[in-house]
């Protein structure tokens, strides 16, 4: 009798395809690429704004064209998935106690959605929509 432990190989590139929950995790992580891309677009817009009316008008024309609208829709979809998945796990990082009892996860997630709705409302009012 001898000891010869066998180590099962793990694919360093394909591990996330082996289980549904790993794939869902990777989908959540990939959304950050689109959040990042949209952030770059916003910074680009600010830069164009600083260059004067003509530069700003051409930037607005770009983002309101078919490609610009498609980019917005794709980013919106990924941002929504990012928000839903991250809000869903917030109770894990926030073990809130109230009167000696743990606040239910649904309340914490609901609180995040309420805050999101509030901030969105303020943005829409400020934007004059």
């Amino acid at each position: 009798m001898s000891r010869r432990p066998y180590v099962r190989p793990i694919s360093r590139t394909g591990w996330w395809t082996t289980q549904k929950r790993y794939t869902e995790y990777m989908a959540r992580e990939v959304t950050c690429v689109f959040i990042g891309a949209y952030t770059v677009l916003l910074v680009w817009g600010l830069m164009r704004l600083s260059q004067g009316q003509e530069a700003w008008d051409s930037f607005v024309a770009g983002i309101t064209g078919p490609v610009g609208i498609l980019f917005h829709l794709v980013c919106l979809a990924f941002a929504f998935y990012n928000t839903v998945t991250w809000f869903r796990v917030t109770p894990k990082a926030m073990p809130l106690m109230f009167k000696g009892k743990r606040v239910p996860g649904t309340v914490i997630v609901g609180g995040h959605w309420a805050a999101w709705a509030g901030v969105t409302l303020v943005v829409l009012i400020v934007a004059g929509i």
Partner: protein
Amino acid sequence: MVDRQIEFKILRYDPDSDEAPHWQSYSVPCDPDWVVLDAINWIKDNVDESLSYRWSCHMAVCGSCGMMVNGEPTLSCKAFLRDYPNTIEVEALNNFPIERDLVVVLDRFMESLAKVKPYIIPKEPRTAEDGTYTQTPAQLKAFKQYSMCINCTLCYAACPQVGLEDGFLGPAALALAHRYNLDSRDVGRSAREDVLTEHDGVWACSFVGACSQVCPKDVDPAAAIQQAKIASTIDYFKERLLPGRSR
């Protein structure tokens, strides 16, 4: 009372004769109330006495009978056959080396556990004459959930980071460290800080959350680790920004 015939495919590995593990099938006449562990015991008693696996209590307390059942880390004593199809694949827990058949090498888990000092570090040494510690229900509630761990290591088998990062301390050990940090009787937080915040500690967790999904005791190690990340971040800034505080 035999209810149905179930085909068990079990990953076998004999270090004395096998180069690599291989699947072996057994047809088992199963009782309606059986769990996977009962069927494996039946195989050992009636077909193949060389089949090796760990088990003890048969009631989801000892934490020894963890196996991959149809690809999911599971306590085989808790896996009722009525919830499974007529073919069941059983193999040793993922992310651990296989010692033999369904028995894994637990050295890495034991070493990780020792590193996080999973015991109460009191402010002053106490003797039995000093009496018991007192703790309010709220103080108990702060950590009780994380103290329910039975060291079954299902969370290690579920966590992709454990498989990819050799040194990662892993979910159960980190959750236990957080459990002691939250305990009002313990002052060992700074003694655990280095091991928790180093590369292989909480920051190696990418929050897949699989550990909490497979935990048979609802310990929720993913929650413990995220909370430990927040606590370590607050400590980091406190140590650098508040006067009179140093490590």
